[in-house]
């Protein structure tokens, strides 16, 4: 039944648009699929991440993952003190529980949850709205689930920023190069007028490495293949209570936040 419905919606979607070049980015979910929370693929590769905020003990723990990412990706430091906050570019950063899960907070939550900082980054959604709206395919989804951005094709229309429900995208309002603290020659810098965001360290994955933030997280972040039932990632997910941001928007993020449950012993 759900297959039929899915098929029907797919055909209807295609028919109404004439022809979708990459239908996989455009398929609508059946209501059942959207509400069940069932999105783990059973085969192939679907990269994802868990973030156990309980393992971040102090500010240095957060700063380490941010620095690890921003330093190797030549992310400019447009600092708030210089009133540059409106031009800010960030790939990974932190915010409170209430800002991370704005529809899932209640006033009686324990104070430590409410004041806890949560690392934020691109969710590499199953159904990424940014990919759906991009008029040039500068933003696209790879087979392994990574949502990538081609800065050379981006026209800077910022439709993806309006579409992203997570505020994960940054635009280069000014030339970023003068603001790069220490340029890493092994990674390209960006030009003014294009959008950028976290790439799940696709360049490190190609070398068999973990994403930079995961590597320095001292086990607080686990990265792996959601499609592999035996992966470490899946074991964390099946033994902990996790949340994804804004489940109501149907994007199916592949970043999960560990809120409670037993400690992962492996």
């Amino acid at each position: 039944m759900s297959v039929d419905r899915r098929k029907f919606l797919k055909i209807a979607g295609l028919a109404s648009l004439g022809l979708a070049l990459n239908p996989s980015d455009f398929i609508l979910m059946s209501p059942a699929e959207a509400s069940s929370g069932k999105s783990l693929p059973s085969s192939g590769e679907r990269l994802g991440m868990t973030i156990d905020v309980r393992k971040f003990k102090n500010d240095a723990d957060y700063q380490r993952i941010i620095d690890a990412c921003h330093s190797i990706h030549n992310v400019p430091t447009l600092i708030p003190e210089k009133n540059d906050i409106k031009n800010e570019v960030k790939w990974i950063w932190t915010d409170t529980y209430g800002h991370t899960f704005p529809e899932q907070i209640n006033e009686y939550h324990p104070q430590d949850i409410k004041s806890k900082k949560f690392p934020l980054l691109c969710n590499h959604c199953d159904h990424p709205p940014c990919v759906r709206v991009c008029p040039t395919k500068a933003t696209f989804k790879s087979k392994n689930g990574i949502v990538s951005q081609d800065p050379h094709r981006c026209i800077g229309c910022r439709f993806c920023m309006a579409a992203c429900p997570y505020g994960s995208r940054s635009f280069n309002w000014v030339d970023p190069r003068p603001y790069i603290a220490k340029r890493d020659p092994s990674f390209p810098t960006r030009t003014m007028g294009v959008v950028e965001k976290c790439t799940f360290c696709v360049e490190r994955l190609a070398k068999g490495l973990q994403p930079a933030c995961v590597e320095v997280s001292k086990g607080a972040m686990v990265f792996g293949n959601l499609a592999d039932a035996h992966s470490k990632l899946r074991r964390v997910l099946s033994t902990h209570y996790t949340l994804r941001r804004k489940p109501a928007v149907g994007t199916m993020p592949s970043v999960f936040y560990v809120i409670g449950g037993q400690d992962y012993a492996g």
Partner: protein
Amino acid sequence: MLDKALKGSKRYWTLVVILLSFITAGFFAYLHQFENGLGVTGMSRDVSWGFYISQFTFLVGVAASAVMLVIPYYLHNYKAFSKIVILGEFLAVAAVSMCMLFIFVDMGQPMRILNVMLHPTLNSILFWDAMVLNGYLVLNLVIGWTTLHAEKKETAPPKWLKPLIYLSIPWAVSIHTVTAFLYAGLPGRHFWLTAIMAARFLASAFAAGPALLLVLALLLRKYTKFDPGKEPIQTIGKIVTYAMIANVFFILLEVFTAFYSNMPGHMHAFEYLFAGIDGKAKLVPLMWTSIILGVASLIMLIPPKFRANENILRIACIFVFFSLWIDKGFGLVIGGFVPNPFGTVTEYWPTLPESIITLGVWAVGFLVLTVLYKIVVSVREDLGTAKSEY
């Protein structure tokens, strides 16, 4: 016929020079933006679209409104519009030109804008918007120019034009529907995620566009030999009245859904726009101005006695235009970005360069409009047909 634009009164040339000076200022401000990036605007990571995109959205509506003259004249054979329908078509040409320029000045990488055509992406509404806007520009230019040419030669317009005219009717609806879809299909923006968006866009367009056209027609009557006649003006007044009522009704539907359901996400943008959140209330005075102008315009428009008075009708139309300009050319786009995805409020206000560029684009549109209207008036003055018999 273009030569008609090269011979004109002192008043005509004064207007052209004034518009050209605004365009020049806008051009230099744009060079500044081109050199230093969109950081020279008031836009930010949180409010990533601003004045440019909101002007674009408003002007798509002005362009689409030509259909309010085309339908009565061509489908219902309403002869009273015979002199004025071309004003609507040329207003659409000017408005679409502005739309395209506003999109262009909003691009972070304007030199790559052709990527939209080079890598056509059918799942992107922006791609479709580019298509329908270009098509609408060509349609109105061809239709307006060909009918005027036939009028000048005192012959009937060629037969092939009729299908294009009929095509332009659904096309006009499409440009504003597709523009509404830019907003109405985004899952994370409660203020925009509403099925009535396209209908509301069309209603406000069919009020603001004809309101502007009415004011322009009265200006032409004052300063040239062109006279639209009494009856067409009254008919346009009626169109504006009904469309404005529909528009206000649609807005009230939004307010009901947001506040009766008590869904926080649906209420936040309204709260920000009309009351402010956490003391952040930059748009509040503007939004209430829009409400007051809108209500005042309806008081002047609905009683037939008031509307029949051209002075009152003109003021009402100016009110309608500015009320909707604030509502759509400001509140709708900015309101969608507030609060941001984290539930916090970042405010937006256009900067000086941004405002000068915006004025410059409007000046380009009005220059196009001035030249096209000048040609229309001159052709008819030569023929002695500048005065409507209605």
